[in-house]
């Protein structure tokens, strides 16, 4: 399928890649992933698929609440949104047992070291969601105190915009992460480099 046009993630079944511009070349994300890497990563077996299915159905988040977004992260567990449906209500407080780090809120430089430590304490496979504008890019706080995007210190899989994102937005981010994992895209720490 790579013959006619560049390789796209949607060719591999990543349904939620938006298809507004079908003739456009590979996205930034796909470039970052690399076509060869993509081919290699997507050559997954049935067993792999089963494991990936299990991992998406039981992706336990770490309780890493920072600021405003943490309140919305809490409401996603609430009865209206109910993250438990995806088997994700097991918010683990010990990073050793968590699979998903939701960085919810602004990260001050003082908090950067603890954040990195928490990330390092998590065991592979692990994923990171940068929730909200502040975690993704520093947001409205372009100043001395705030880290301008957590992707400086931890590899981020999914960025969720807005300030703070609605629970639905977080849920969409999570579902996309699931889809990406099911489609065979490796976690961010295998793809991206960050300063250590």
């Amino acid at each position, binding site marked *: 399928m790579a013959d006619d046009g560049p390789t796209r993630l949607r060719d591999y079944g990543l349904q939620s890649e938006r298809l507004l511009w079908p003739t456009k070349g590979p996205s930034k994300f796909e470039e970052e992933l690399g076509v060869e890497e993509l081919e290699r990563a997507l050559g997954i077996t049935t067993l792999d698929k089963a494991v990936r299915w299990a991992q998406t159905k039981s992706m336990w988040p770490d309780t890493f609440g920072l*600021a405003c977004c943490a*309140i919305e992260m809490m409401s996603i567990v609430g009865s209206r949104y109910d993250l438990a449906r995806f088997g994700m209500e097991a918010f683990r407080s010990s990073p050793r047992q968590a699979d998903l780090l939701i960085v919810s809120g602004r990260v001050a430089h003082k908090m950067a070291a*603890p954040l990195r430590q928490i990330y390092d304490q998590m065991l592979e496979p692990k994923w990171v969601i940068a929730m909200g504008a502040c975690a993704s890019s520093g947001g*409205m706080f372009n*100043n001395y105190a705030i880290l301008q995007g957590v992707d400086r210190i931890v590899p981020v899989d999914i960025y969720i915009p807005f300030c703070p994102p609605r629970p639905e937005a977080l849920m969409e981010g999570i579902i996309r992460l699931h889809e990406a994992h099911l489609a065979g895209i490796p976690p961010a720490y295998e793809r991206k480099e960050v300063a250590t």
Partner: protein
Amino acid sequence: MTATLPHVGRARRWPMVGDPIYEGSRIPKRVPTIVDVPAALRETDDVLQVNFGPNHPSTHGVLRLIVDLDGEKVVGLSAVIGYLHTGFEKNMEQKTWWKAITYPERIDYVGYQNNELVFVLAIEKLLELEVPEKATWMRMLMCELNRIHSHLVFLGTSALELGAISMFWYCFRERETILDLFELVAGQRMHTRYFQAGGLAEDIPAGFYPEARSFVERMPHALDDYLTLLDRNKIWLERTQGVGLLSADDAIALGQSGPVLRASGVDWDLRRDDPYLAYDQVDFRVPVYNGGDVYDRYRVRMDEMAESTQIVRQCIDRLERMEGEPWIADDRKVVLPPREELHTSMESLIHHFKIVTEGYRVPAGEIYVAIESPRGESGCYVVSDGGPRPWRVHFRAPSFAALQATATCAQGSLIADLIAIVGSLDAVMGDTDR
């Protein structure tokens, strides 16, 4: 009136008109903000130093407590804050006045309406702007909804921390209804930025009153549910009563405010004693308890939720009669012109352009405005040099004051109590660190 609240083993006193107000304290002794490990104990090997936080499930964000434990007993305690220091005050100096309104909400991200209000009130005080009555009442309604919201988050999380996990879901159920109301009004669930200098950003949308009314009808029943689940539960009472004691004198010495102060027996509420908005025109009572423990702080908040519901009801009654009245001051130097005028009026276009690009100017001066936020006295100190940007903004954070009391409350407690105490002080770390 609200359903009667059952009271367990505690005298309650509602302040009456003409009651003497607390006369102050001479600060009898030094109140510590750090608990030191006794020297004799430090020598031995019995002390285990544990780091609670900055990422710990029950520190309400990124508070770090360095706790010395002798078995289960807390013998030493010091709090380290600043893990969420965001530089709001510096950033706001760089923004024009009306763009800076966006920032205060993110400071106290649970009581955002109130924080927004205090900054807007500060601007209005410097500008000496007249705010239309409808805006005043709507602000009051929003702030009281926000107070309920904040207390619900407190109740849900602190009950969760004491192991009563289901409370979290029940509290967040009601919280969602409040957020729906916010969304209906402002389009955003949190951080609505609905208050403008001069009034409100938008008119109150159609269909808001019935929704708000159904919430007001429902809230007392929800409160009854919470009380049934917690207040009649022996374990809850055991866990909270007599824990984390803070005397009235200590509370004043430590600059406490809001529910923490009222739970220590000091009858003080800025809404009643220094009315802003239209609080002098609504009926509400200020709950005061004398125990100064975790339970009383919880009870004060429970009663405040009931009272706030009543205020909301009165606000709706009043607002419904103000249909068609202006919701923002008609001062084109400060207030954005109505959208439709931009197409027909050159002057409006210029005003719009000036306000959006350069911002309005605020007369020089320094002021301090304080309101009663869900957490206590939320103050805003503003210095203006007459330019389009604030020269200095400083927020008096009630959580900052409350956290200072942790050590005093936690003397001689167990680890489990410590969790309850930190929860009961209801500090929002964004508010503490700014």
